[in-house]
C-alpha cells in the first residue's frame, strides 16, 4: 500500500466513518472542511509517527505539513529522505 492509500484509509475510517472513497479529496483542507478537529490533528501525528517510523518536531506540526492528504504525503517523503 502506498503512503497515500494508508493515509486516505486512516482518515476515511476514523474521521469520515465511511468506505466511500469519493468523500475525501487529496487536496481537501482538514480544518476548513471540518474533517479533523484539533484533537484529530494530534491523532494524525501519532498515526504518522507509528505507521511511518518518523519523528515529527514541534515546529513541524503546522498546517503546511499536515492539513491535507497531499501535504502529509509530501511531508513524509521529505522526512524519509
Amino acid at each position, binding site marked *: 500500500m502506498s503512503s497515500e492509500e494508508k493515509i486516505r484509509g486512516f482518515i476515511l475510517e476514523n474521521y469520515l*466513518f*465511511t468506505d466511500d472513497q469519493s468523500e475525501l479529496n487529496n487536496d481537501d483542507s482538514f480544518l476548513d472542511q471540518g474533517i479533523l478537529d484539533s484533537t484529530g490533528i494530534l491523532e494524525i501525528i501519532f498515526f504518522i509517527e507509528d505507521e511511518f517510523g518518523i519523528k515529527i518536531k514541534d515546529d513541524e506540526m503546522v498546517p503546511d505539513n499536515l492539513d491535507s492528504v497531499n501535504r502529509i504525503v509530501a511531508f513524509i517523503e521529505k522526512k524519509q529522505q
Partner: protein
Amino acid sequence: MPRRPRSRPSENFMCGISGILNLGHGAAPSRGELEAMIHALRHRGPDGYGFFVDGPVGLAHARLSIIDLEGGDQPIHNEDGSVQVVFNGEIFNFLELREELEKQGHHFYTRSDTEVIVHLYEEYADDFVHHLVGQFAIALWDTRRQRLLLVRDRAGIRPLYYTLFQGRLYFASELKSLFTQPGMARELDPVALGEVFTFWCPLEPHSMFRDVQALPAGHCISVERGKLQLDRYWDWNFPREQIRNDRSVGEWAEQLRELMIDAVRLRLRSDVPVGAYLSGGLDSSIITSLIHNFTDTSLRTFSIGFEDEEFDESSFQKELVNYLDTDHTHVTCTRNDIGRIFPRVIWHTESTILRTAPAPLMLLSQHVRESGYKVVLTGEGADEVFGGYDIFKEAKIRRFCHRAPNSSLRPQILQRLYPYLKYSPASGGAFGKQFFQQGMEYIDTPFFAHVPRWSTTRRSWKFFSEELKGAVSGKVDFESICPLLPPDIDSWESLNRDQYVENHTLLSGYLLNSQGDRMAMANSIEGRFPFLDHRVMEFAAGIPPHYKIRVLNEKYLLKESMKGLIPESIRRRNKQPYRAPDSQSFFRDGKAIDWVRDLLSEAELRQAGYFNPVAVEKLLKKCATGRVIGFADNMAFVGILSTMLLDKMFVQGYSSDAFT
C-alpha cells in the same frame, strides 16, 4: 440580620406530580388513569400518593414524606377548597410567607410549605409566583374559574412536561408518566435529535418526543375554557443599565456573602437531616463552608472519586473534609459501574445525553439514600451565574485574538486555558490557534461563544441515517437559537450574552435536568441549589463582567467574597470541570460490553433507523482500540448509545431491567 421565625417542621415533600384536564371534547379524567400516571413517578415520591378528581380535572402527587399526614391523601387546598394544588419542589421562604399571610387573615390547616401557594394565589392571583424563593413545578386548579395553572421555576430546576391528546391536556413531572396512557404516541422527534446533537438539549419548548412539550423555565401555562396560554414571568436579564459600576470589589463581596449565607440557611430548613455534595471544587466548598461557619448544622458530606487521574478530585475533597471536619462518605465510581448503570441512567434522564457525567451522580444519590438522607445541597449554577465556565474564558480570548488577527503572540494565551486535560484543543500548537479562530464569521452574533462547542457537537451528524439527515436538514442550525433570545441582547455586554445562551441551553436543558434533578430523584433524593436562588441570580446580573472574569481569573468576585472562609488552596485552584470517563466505560479488553454490542448491532441500528450502521461500526472499532478519543467522538458515542437506549425503553417499550 433580620429576625427569623423559629423553625417549625414541614409535613410533606411532594416530589412528583401529574394530571389530566378535559379541554371540552375529551372524557373526564378517572382515578384509575391518574393512578397509572403517578405510579410511574414513585421513585420521586415513594411514601404515598394523593389525588383530586373533580369534573374536568384530575390532579395527583407522589409524596416523599417524613411525618404522616392526618386526614388522608388529598392535595393541598385553601380554606374553602376552591383552590387545589399539587407541586413538586420546595418553597424555602415559606415561614416568612406564612407569617405574612396569617397577618392578612388566612388560615392554615397544615404545616407544609405547599400551603402558602394556595393562600398566595388568593391574595395575588397569578403573580403569586414572584413571592416564592424556591424550586418548583406547580399545578394549581381554580375551581371557581375552572382554570388550570402550570408554573415552572425560574432556572428550570424541577421538570414539567405536557401534551394534548384526545381532547385533553396531560401533564407530568416526567415523560414516563405521560407514556402510561394507552394510545399516546411515543416517537423521538428528529428535530429534537438535531438540536441535542448541536446544543446539547432540545431547544425550548421541545422535549425529545414528538408532540410533547417541556414547560420552559420561568414560564407558566393557564388553561381556561379549553384554551392554552403560555406566558413568561421571569428571565435571565442583563441590560447594561442594570450593571452597577459604583461599588468596590469589597462592597460587592460583602453583599454577595450575605446573600449566599441566606440562600444556604433557607435551604437547610428541613424536618430531615440535610447533606451536601463535595466535588473538591470551589462551588461545593463554598456551600459546605458556609454551612460550617454560619449555621449549627453538623455536616454530612458525600463525594465521588474515579480510578482515572484525569477525572479524580479525591485529594481536594479530602482537604476540604479535613478543614470542615465533616462526617464524610466517599464513593468510587469505576468504568464498570458506569457501563452497568447507564441504561437506568437514561431511563431517568429520558433524554439523549452526550457525556456520562450524570451516571456517577446516580451512584452517589444511591449512597445518600442508603445513608438515611433525603436532601442534599449542591453547587450547580455557580459557573453560570458568576462566569466560571471555560467557554466564557475561551470566548473572551477569541474576541481578544480577533482584535489583532495576525498576531502570533495572542494565541499563546490559549495554552493557559486547559491545564487539566491530557489531550486538548489548545495543545495542537498552530492547529489549536486555527481551532480557536474558527467561527470568526460569527463574531457579531450573540451566540459567538458557543460556536466551537456547537461545531464540535455537530460533527455527530455524520452518524445520522439518511432518513434522519433528511428530517433535520434545514431545520436545525446555530441560528435556531435566535428566536429564544431577547430583542435587546445585542446591546448587552458580551459575557452576559454568553451567559444567557448558556443558561437557556446547557443549564436548564442538560445540567439541571439530566445531571441534577433526574439523577437525585432516581433514588428519591431532593437536590437543593443555593447558587440558583433567584435573588442571587438577580444580584449577579448587576455585577460588572470584569468582576466575574478578571482578565482570565474566573469567578473572581465569588472567590474574593469567600476569602478566609475556605482553604486558600481550593480558592486558588485551577478550574477542573466535573467529568467522568465517557466511551471507555463501555469497552473491556478491546471489545464493547455485551449489552452495548447488542444494542449497537447492525440489526438494531437499522430497525431504530436514526443512525448509519456502517459509520457506527467504525466508531465502535475506533473506541474499542482504547486510543485517545477526542471530544467529538466521545460525544457521538455517548449520544448514539443513549439515543438507542431511549428508543428501546420508551419507543419500543422495554424496561431498563432488560439490560442487566
